[in-house]
């Protein structure tokens, strides 16, 4: 099995989908000639031509709006937003249109499409190249929201998203584009939407994370293990629909939960997971439900390394719930 990084897994996943399904077209800024600013679409324009790998004018509103039209008409468009931070000019199309077509038309019209965007911090990109705004989309009924943390999941979830019938927000943790490496099967496979991955089993504390916070939690779990604390690490992968069972079963076992995400704490998706636990598993809890998150400030430039949750902050939270 070839070893590759997360970026390459996205690239081969796109290539595979385009080879096997001519309904798949890509559109976005700098995705053709340049192969994307990160290289996610490298080589695809050459193989599939400008008709299927479309360099668009600089308007996310146009990118998403026209992709919706393509999806309505029967294609499987995969629009790219260059950085998740630049998705907001398309926000109306996403929340008012893409998310609602099936519902508002009584199922007559549907929007099967996969909106890809690199998300999260860790590249010294300052506020406008680092945001994690999954909570906005998770609060928007009609959208599926995915975020892989491994190359294997990136390719497999992408395949599921493209073959599915629902509109998907596909978030790629840019900090892991090159940092996350792993084996990826050459043949096509899917990773199911709505199933979390238990990245590490443990008995004392449940850590819940997604995207670039997964390896942070794994590392923190390793450090905790040295102190005799046995952490379970759950990688959500699928934010909506959420795998509540896996989370609740884990908390029922451990009695303690620490949720870790990059986005600002207030109103982040961590709140939903905490609320889920507080609603359905409170009787198992032996400590407060802790959240380790970005601070409630815009994402900074110089102090990025302070802003983003790291193993030490997670470690401290683990100790907090253990010593409660």
């Amino acid at each position, binding site marked *: 099995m070839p070893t590759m990084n997360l970026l390459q897994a996205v690239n081969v996943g796109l290539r595979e989908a385009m080879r096997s399904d001519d309904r798949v*077209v890509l559109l976005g800024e700098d995705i053709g000639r340049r192969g994307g600013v990160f290289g996610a679409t490298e080589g695809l324009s050459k193989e599939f031509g400008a*008709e*299927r790998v*479309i360099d*668009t*004018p600089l*308007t996310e*509103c*146009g990118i*998403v*709006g*026209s*992709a*919706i*039209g*393509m*999806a*309505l*008409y*029967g*294609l499987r*468009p995969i629009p790219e937003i260059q950085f998740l931070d630049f998705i907001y*000019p398309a926000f*109306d*199309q996403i929340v*008012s*249109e893409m998310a*609602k*077509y*099936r*519902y*508002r*038309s*009584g*199922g*007559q*019209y*549907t929007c099967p499409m996969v909106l890809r965007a690199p998300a999260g911090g860790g590249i010294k990109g300052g506020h406008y190249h680092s945001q994690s705004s999954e909570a906005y989309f998770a609060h928007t*009924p*009609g959208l*599926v929201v995915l975020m892989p943390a491994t190359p294997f999941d990136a390719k497999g979830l992408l395949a599921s998203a493209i073959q*599915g*019938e*629902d509109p998907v927000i596909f978030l790629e943790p840019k900090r892991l584009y090159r940092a996350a490496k792993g084996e990826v099967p050459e043949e096509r496979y899917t990773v199911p939407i*709505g199933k979390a991955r238990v990245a590490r089993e443990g008995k004392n504390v449940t850590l819940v994370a997604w995207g670039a916070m997964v390896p942070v939690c794994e590392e923190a779990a390793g450090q905790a293990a040295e102190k005799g604390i046995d952490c379970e690490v759950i990688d959500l992968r699928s934010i*909506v*629909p*959420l795998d*509540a069972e896996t989370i609740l079963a884990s908390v029922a076992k451990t009695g303690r939960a620490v949720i870790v995400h990059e986005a600002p704490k207030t109103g982040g998706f961590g709140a939903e997971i905490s609320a889920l636990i507080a609603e359905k598993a409170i009787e198992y809890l032996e400590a407060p439900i802790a959240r380790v998150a970005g601070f409630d400030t815009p994402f900074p430039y110089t102090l990025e390394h302070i802003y983003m949750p790291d193993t030490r902050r997670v470690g401290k939270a683990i100790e907090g719930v253990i010593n409660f």
Partner: protein
Amino acid sequence: MTQTKTKAKTNRAVKEKKPSIKIDDLPLPKADLLRIYRSMVLTRALDERGMMLQRQGRIGFFVPCIGQEAAQVGSAHALTARDWIFPSYRNTGTAIHRGVPMTEIIANLYGNSLDLSKGRQMPNHFSFKSIHFVSISSPIGTQITQAVGAAMAARYRKENMVAITDFGDGATSSNDFHAGLNFAGVFKAPVVFLCQNNQWAISQPLCDQTASPTIAAKAEAYGFPGVRVDGNDVLAVWQAVKEALDRARAGGGPTLVEAVTYRMGPHSSSDNPKAYRKDAEVESWKAKDPIDRFRRTLGDAGILSEADDKTLWEAARQEIVQAVKTVEAGPALPVETLFEDVYVAMPKHLAEQQQALRREIEERGGIRHGDGAFPL
């Protein structure tokens, strides 16, 4: 570069008040002309009934198209069956001419179990898949970029489809107007942009919307032609839209068609236009009523007698009354439908909410209806 026609005079297919018109002067066969007229009448009759139903409290809200029938039916007549329509909420005439059964239209006003959209949206926010009439939403302009995408998709598939999208003068200020027309220009998409310039966006006149002398002129900014047409002349609209469709189909790219017309009625059943516009203005446009005008043309050409006309109106009203009856007899919308169609398959969290609601309703022994009036 395609030629820009924005400076062209307003097109008129038939000169008004031509003393006597022969059928041969008209650009369409008699059957077509009568079908067009019938659709215009049906649209008007529905609007009159719709406003009444709303006043009587039988439906919650209504959007009339009164005054814009020519723009809608004329453009609809130019389409082929495979073309897609990306409409606004003020497009009932288009759907009617396209052949949607009246019950389906009226079922949407009631939002009961006969409504194809399962009561998910306000009245006049139709979805008619069978006629490629795409689901309407309220946010202004969003259909414009979508039409461009559908057009690009059809070309990619080498299908001979042209997309048309309708929107108002207010919508020319929207994000999607700019993004959509710009995309269409760059990609030479087979799409027709039909602005039903009815002079008003709720209470705001056209001059609040743009300093451009015309809306058609805006096409130049996107590198394709803009055409201005008398939107109350159904045959002129038909002709202008047909030319635009033909050119798009032949690979000539998009056109912006500005149909100059007038919203003779209120913005919606919740609006009172007397509060913001002059009676004299309305009266002057009533004199240009597109239905009266076309009836005169047909009468002059000897195609439609007064008696024919009366019969036609009666049949239209009868069809609507009948459809209202059918719809009102339809069953209420099942509560479980609330949770359907959010996703292709119901995810667990929704199934759980559905289940809880079902239990709750059982416990409380049924459901009650809320009230509330819509302000616009």
